[in-house]
């Protein structure tokens, strides 16, 4: 994890198209000395051919971004198995088998 260090770089995020359920996505960056001008530059560069419904810019130096060293800590499913439905499902089936009754809720993934 690290802090951005470039005050004149702004990352641009847009939501494109008619489907309001689409996520807002990172599209690239612009260089500017001023936040509003950065927004206008991003509008001119990244929304030229598709209708955008959302356009954000964020100064890179104000962002905290992950690095390769953070991969392990972000890999939830393998690290925190006790959060997963499969884990509790297996427990329930094992318990039902011991008690010789039908498990509730059917097979879990």
């Amino acid at each position, binding site marked *: 994890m690290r802090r951005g260090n470039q005050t004149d770089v702004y990352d641009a995020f847009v939501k494109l198209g008619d489907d309001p359920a689409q996520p807002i996505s990172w*599209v*690239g960056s612009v260089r500017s*000395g001023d936040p509003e001008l950065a927004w206008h530059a991003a509008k*001119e560069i990244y929304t030229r051919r*598709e209708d955008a419904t959302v356009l954000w810019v964020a100064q890179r130096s104000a962002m905290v971004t992950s690095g390769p060293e953070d991969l392990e800590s972000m890999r939830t499913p393998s690290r925190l198995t006790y959060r997963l439905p499969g884990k509790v499902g297996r427990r329930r089936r094992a318990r039902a088998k011991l008690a010789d009754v039908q498990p509730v809720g059917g097979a879990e993934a």
Partner: protein
Amino acid sequence: MTITQGHGIDDDTRLAQKYELWDEMPEGYREAAARIASFQALAELVGVLPFAEWLDRAPDFERKQMLAAKIQDEVGHGHVTARVAEDLGVPREQILSDFAEGRSKLLNIFHYRFETWEEIGPAALLMNSSAIVQFQALDKGTYLPYARALRKIEKEESFHYHHAIDLTHQTMTLGTPEQRALAQRSFETWLPRLLAYFGPPDTDTYQQNPMYTFGLKVKSNDQLRQEWLTKIVPVFRDLGIQVDPDLARFDEDLQEWVYAAPDWIEIKRILNEGGPMLAHWRAHIAGTLERNGTYRDIALEGVPA
């Protein structure tokens, strides 16, 4: 030489490992990715100048609007690819000053200007279609920020392509015989230049080229050249341009295009010593850098005390 069939991009092991800006990269990879992005940024920014100088000579308002849109697009492409290069450590000022001061080379096709309005349509069509073929291969490459930039650029190139077809169509349909002859001559002048744009014929060792092993270069020069001819020659024929078989023809026996080889010695001379317009474009970029320098410094660093 044959086009390698079945050597699909999807199962090409060179292209399996992709990289983001923050990933660890093999030795030399970062520099190679920076080189390809800054080279393209320069090509976009200088490549727009031959078009820009026709802006106030466009024959009607609609055409002028479309030409302005293309010019803005290309400058935007310059910005996007320069950002990719800057993130890898090559500042855009360096990309431009290296060019202005003669330290970097320019693609062969940008060493010229358009002598007539009628020349623009066929030349732009050859340029756009070859750029699209190039980008559609390069966007499968291994450096993801560059691949994303290219996919954005392709959407706009598609408009340029159709604009160039429309421009050529107008000349060939409504033009005088003199104008049609100019369009025909433009095709014959620019075809060899664009054949050369794809680079020298494949050597036996092109697969050992680091750009290729890194997966930054996706297809070989000859592969791309063949794909491009397959795509573009029929388009010109439909527009009423005569494609002289001595310039390019599809050989049924060989199952590939046979074309008049560009004058590689002359191309090399142009790349090293400069073509007719290089000095002019250099002076233009140098002048712009100097003229806008004060504003740029204030915008990026604040008003000096």
